[in-house]
């Protein structure tokens, strides 16, 4: 949580320097309230109890999300607390996806024992078996809806698509939204958690001399 607090502090400080005193005086209480709210939300989550998922389902979902974003030398879905994010999602914004999960998990269980007799559940399968099971799930989902570019969300998303979307969300959304615990997801992809930035932003704009009109020799048209 320390990272989160210091990111917010840095944000407030930079706004102050960018905006000047008048703006900060006018907006300070509002900004502070937002920061406190976000901090409380981050602190309250992940709760170590599941509100919707049964322990059994939680174990399967953790194994599934971990197969989507595995833990290797860098943290994965497990370390980001994705299963807790999904539990909260199924209670809040994705409550109507509960049957999708229930049916999907039941289907997966059946598929697991059919494809690998003697293996009862996804979480008990070997890595290679998990790969094959995910491939099969994904293949089946190709006929279903997929979310759009703007995350508009198709209403008929399959279990595989829903699970993948929720796993990625739990790994990568701002911790304000209850995922990406301690910014582990952002650390993996290289997203600095600060709330404000100054140029240069990266490698290519480092030595940019400022905009100039095109020189005549580059004019070909």
């Amino acid at each position: 949580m320390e990272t989160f607090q210091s990111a917010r502090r840095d944000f407030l400080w930079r706004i102050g320097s960018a905006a000047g005193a008048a703006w900060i005086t006018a907006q300070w209480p509002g900004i502070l309230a937002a920061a406190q709210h976000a901090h409380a939300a981050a602190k309250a989550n992940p709760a170590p109890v599941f509100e919707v998922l049964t322990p059994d389902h939680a174990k399967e979902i953790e194994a599934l999300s971990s197969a989507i974003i595995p833990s290797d030398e860098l943290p994965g879905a497990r370390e980001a607390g994705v299963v807790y994010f999904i539990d909260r999602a199924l209670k809040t914004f994705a409550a109507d996806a509960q049957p999708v999960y229930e049916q999907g998990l039941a289907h997966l269980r059946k598929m697991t024992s059919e494809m690998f007799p003697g293996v009862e559940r996804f979480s008990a399968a070997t890595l290679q078996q998990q790969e094959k099971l995910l491939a099969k799930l994904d293949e089946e989902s190709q006929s279903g809806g997929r979310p759009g570019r703007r995350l508009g969300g198709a209403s008929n998303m399959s279990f595989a698509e829903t699970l993948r979307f929720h796993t990625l969300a739990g790994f990568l959304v701002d911790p304000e939204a209850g995922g990406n615990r301690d910014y582990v997801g952002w650390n993996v992809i290289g997203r600095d958690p600060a709330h404000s930035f100054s140029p240069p932003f990266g490698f290519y704009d480092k030595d940019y001399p400022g905009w100039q009109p095109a020189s005549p020799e580059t004019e070909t048209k």
Partner: protein
Amino acid sequence: MTQAKVTYRPSHEVDFVIIGSGAAGGVLAKELSTNGFRVVVLEQGPYLTEADFTHDEIEVFNNHKLTNNPKRQPVTFRKTESEKAVLQPSVMYGRCVGGSSVHFTANYWRFHEIDFIERSKVGDIPGTGFTDWPISYADLEPYYTKVEWEIGVSGLAGASPFDPPRSKPYPMPPLPVKGSGVLFERGARKLGYHPFPAPMAILSQPRPGRSACVNCGFCLGFGCEVGAKSSSLATVIRVAERTGRCEVRPNCYVHQIATDTNGRVTGAMYFDAHRNTHLQKAKAVVVCANGAETPRLLLLSANKAFPNGLANSSGLVGKYLMPNSSAIAHGVFDEPLNDYKGPAVSRVFHDFYELDATKLGFYGGGGLDARFDFTPLAFAMNGLPPDTPRWGKEFKKALKQNFTRTMEIFCHATSLPVASNNFSLDPDVKDAWGLPALRMTFKDHPNDMKMVAWMADRAMEVLDAAGAKTKWRPPITEQQFAVHLLGTCRMGNDPKTSVINPDHRTHDVPNLFLCDGSSLVTSGRGQPTMTIQALAYRAADRITALAKRGDLAGPAVHAT
């Protein structure tokens, strides 16, 4: 001096009721109230401010914090008028005080001269309602300048050789260049094009009560926490409220415009937050509800005197929907750009603004911009090369490698006006208030598909010239989702072929005015908001002049 905020009782007849508080509604509220009129702005959505804005994608995208929620206000879609429309969230617009200007990208290109006279120049295009505007670029120029200075647009005048004439430079310098902008400039110049700093409705310098952009990166799709994005909320709405004559009333869903026996409007009927119905009385009504909700409201307001919908004697209310065609190309580079920082766009070129129709075999044109507009989650869903595994070690590795090294080139282009592309009322589906749902009928004109595919190929060449090590572009598919809601109550001199006159007055009802994306006659090149606001400033001047000479109610009219 700041006045106390005013409130009016609905039974109190004000001068103007404005429906919608977005790009156009905000400007009209500010102009009409500072000109001395009493104004009520009715906004469907909530009144959020900077303190309510968040980087929480679940809140913003999944829970539709800033936009219409298709669960409560369903939309149906079909490609042609002979099909039955199916439930499909095919329209998105801002639904909060400030409208779509709260969450937009803030690309602020002016239209060019050609956009107003293109029909005369290239001739008829069969199967379309392609026509010239009744006003010219020169008529709008002073208002474009007014937009730039009043709300705050950053840019560099004279940097693009294709720019139309302007009376004043930008009020502030461009925003910082991003890695995508530098690479775009490099590639485009190698190919002989003329990239320039993007004109953006985002502050590069602070203004009273507003911070300069802090480059937080949660820009497109989000409300600005520091007031740097020049939304109606952060600019004109506040000026309007400070006059002490304008009340902005949120959570008011207008479902009917009331009329009297003389064929004049008397006010707007709306549901409040508790679903109680009120009539806000007014001498005149200005509808700025966007190119989907404005025609829907006119159609919902049908009555005995106006059986086909209000102001619809032409039958064109809802017709000629032009959502702008577009395409996108992605490139991955060797070194980190960290393009997630800052607003989406920093460089543009307009070399293709006016393509040679005879040479290429299709009409139209557009502009290309260099951008990165993905949140981390959106990137994981849609930002990786198409052959990347969808899960597992390799997927994770691609995320790690590409998130900081990817950029996009977005091609923004024209849509032709086709009458069978339109908004209408769905005969079966109702929204959560029991009102007929919006129905969208749309199929791209083949010309637009060809043109945008051509532009996407040029974008790939620019990425190549910039040194991209991987590049790809999704196939061009027919659009089934619209955010640019243009052309659906078009402006014109002839009441038979247009809905409003050049004063934004409806041809049929003298004290009913429309101003928003629906007023547009052509679609421009994919960046309509600047023009919508320039039209709104101009409309406010025209309406003020009519009101001052006591001409709001107009001559006696016959309802058709």
